[in-house]
């Protein structure tokens, strides 16, 4: 095993990105993700890379768009209000079918909100955010180790499917330190014949573009893109199951909420309640099959979220509303305590 080091979640993302071959970072400061920019600012000049602090989030995502169009591995990072500003570029990148990595270390909203951890950008990440029909691969790390491994995975998936991978983290996972080891990262390399590199007079010009004024052509592009998304939905869902073998109740939680929920599951088991946890690691594609299968096994579901209840809609859709789903949540930067989750599990066990 590789050497274990202690690292902040945000720094783990930055280091992993560099190991994944990312040499271009464009961003704008915002709490609680600024360590990513600081790490890049320190490291990039020393390894022949580029760190550039843009004039705004809007500019930085458009720099990412330009850089991605050249075929480079490129990323930006921000936190909730900044991601709203980046929505424009996310839509253009999706409409141009080019790969990029975007990190959202979420904080409470809406509006300027607060700076404490949140998961209230679930809808924005998984359902759109920008305009038009498009999807992003949304990866939800629950540990510092996953901040790194999912960043590398995110770059690979982005290149493979020509779309944006978003790391949807939160202030807690971003700020906390845990031991982490960088195994030899598996860097997948994909041909990029579409990249803007200059024709060198040897080929017809490449055009990176999302404008199709003929509606039938635009429709065809959308259908083509969604065929690709179908493959992603088929092949790429990731999730973790914890104590699910004999579970009669199922907690569903991702990111930091899943860490709290695990404590509660252990405590509930000690009380004799047969409860398990399904932790979606990809929020899009959502692990629908796992949830659907669990719906035939358990009596009810509890969705634990740092929001007013967003993922719960996908839990209901995935389980086809076959079993009741209750919500256990805090919002605005507050985190549910293991006791609060335990109480929800007890209520579920009582059939409430």
């Amino acid at each position, binding site marked *: 095993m590789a050497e*274990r*080091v*202690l690292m902040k979640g945000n720094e783990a993302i930055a280091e992993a990105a560099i190991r994944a071959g990312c040499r271009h970072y464009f961003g704008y400061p915002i*709490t*609680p993700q600024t360590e990513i920019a600081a790490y890049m600012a320190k490291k990039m000049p020393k390894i022949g890379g580029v760190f550039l602090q843009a004039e705004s989030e809007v500019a930085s995502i458009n720099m990412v768009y330009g850089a991605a169009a050249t075929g480079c591995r490129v990323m930006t990072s921000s936190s909730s209000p900044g991601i709203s500003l980046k929505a424009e570029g996310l839509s253009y990148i999706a409409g141009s079918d080019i790969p990029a990595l975007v990190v959202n270390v979420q904080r409470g909203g809406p509006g300027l909100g607060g*700076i*404490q951890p949140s998961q209230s950008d679930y809808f924005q990440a998984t359902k759109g955010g920008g305009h038009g029909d498009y999807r992003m691969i949304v990866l939800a790390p629950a540990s510092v180790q996953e901040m790194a491994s999912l960043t590398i995975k995110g770059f690979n998936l982005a290149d493979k499917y020509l779309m944006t991978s978003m790391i949807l983290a939160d*202030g*807690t996972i971003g*700020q*906390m*330190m*845990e*031991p982490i080891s960088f195994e030899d990262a598996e860097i997948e390399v994909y041909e990029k014949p579409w990249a803007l590199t200059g024709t060198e007079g040897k080929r017809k010009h490449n055009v990176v573009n999302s404008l199709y004024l003929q509606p039938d052509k635009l429709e065809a592009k959308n259908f083509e893109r969604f065929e690709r998304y179908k493959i992603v939905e088929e092949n790429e869902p990731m999730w973790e199951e914890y104590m699910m073998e004999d579970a009669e109740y199922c907690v569903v939680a991702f990111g*930091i909420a899943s*860490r*709290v929920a*695990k*404590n509660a599951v*252990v405590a509930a088991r000690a009380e004799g309640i047969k409860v398990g946890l399904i932790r979606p690691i990809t929020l899009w594609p959502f692990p629908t099959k796992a949830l659907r299968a669990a719906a035939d096994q358990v009596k009810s579901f509890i969705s634990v979220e740092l929001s007013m209840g967003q993922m719960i809609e996908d839990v209901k859709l995935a389980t086809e509303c076959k079993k009741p789903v209750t919500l256990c949540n805090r919002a605005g930067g507050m*985190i549910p*305590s*293991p*006791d609060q989750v335990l109480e929800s599990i007890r209520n579920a066990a009582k059939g409430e």
Partner: protein
Amino acid sequence: MKTTQILLAGFGGQGVLFAGKFLAYKGLVQDKQVSWLPSYGPEMRGGTANCSVIISDTPVGSPIITNPDVLVAMNLPSLQKFVNDVVPGGVIVLDSTLIGAKVDREDVKVCYVPATQMAKDAGFATLANMILTGKVLKEAPCVDFADNKGTLEAFIPAKKAGLIDVNCKALQMGYDF
């Protein structure tokens, strides 16, 4: 199978985060599972700061501590905020130079360490945090006290290596108090 949850709290600038980091590294080099979670945001700039450190033989679940086994308090507001959260049978280590109040709980062990005064007398006024940390390692032996030097070397940048010896001394003072 043991898990120790340590909450360190004080004013920004007292070295609460650093002390927490030391404990986390201590766990790391001794092959424990650890997590270190700081408070962050405007309160970091001169206000109160705290950090949660979990050292465990098994993977750490939630890194958030609601009921610490050990509370390190470096100012009165921090003590007042967290004193009732400490688990029965837990330990409170406080800086009695800065906190005049007594803890009126019977079910916890309270260590009154005049750390700020001790640090001043010893000639390293800024290391009250490490004196208190030494006491933590004595009262809640979640990791071996040995080889603090090795731990400090693991995360103190080379240009500040000169600080390692005094940190070790401060830890020892707290441990022996």
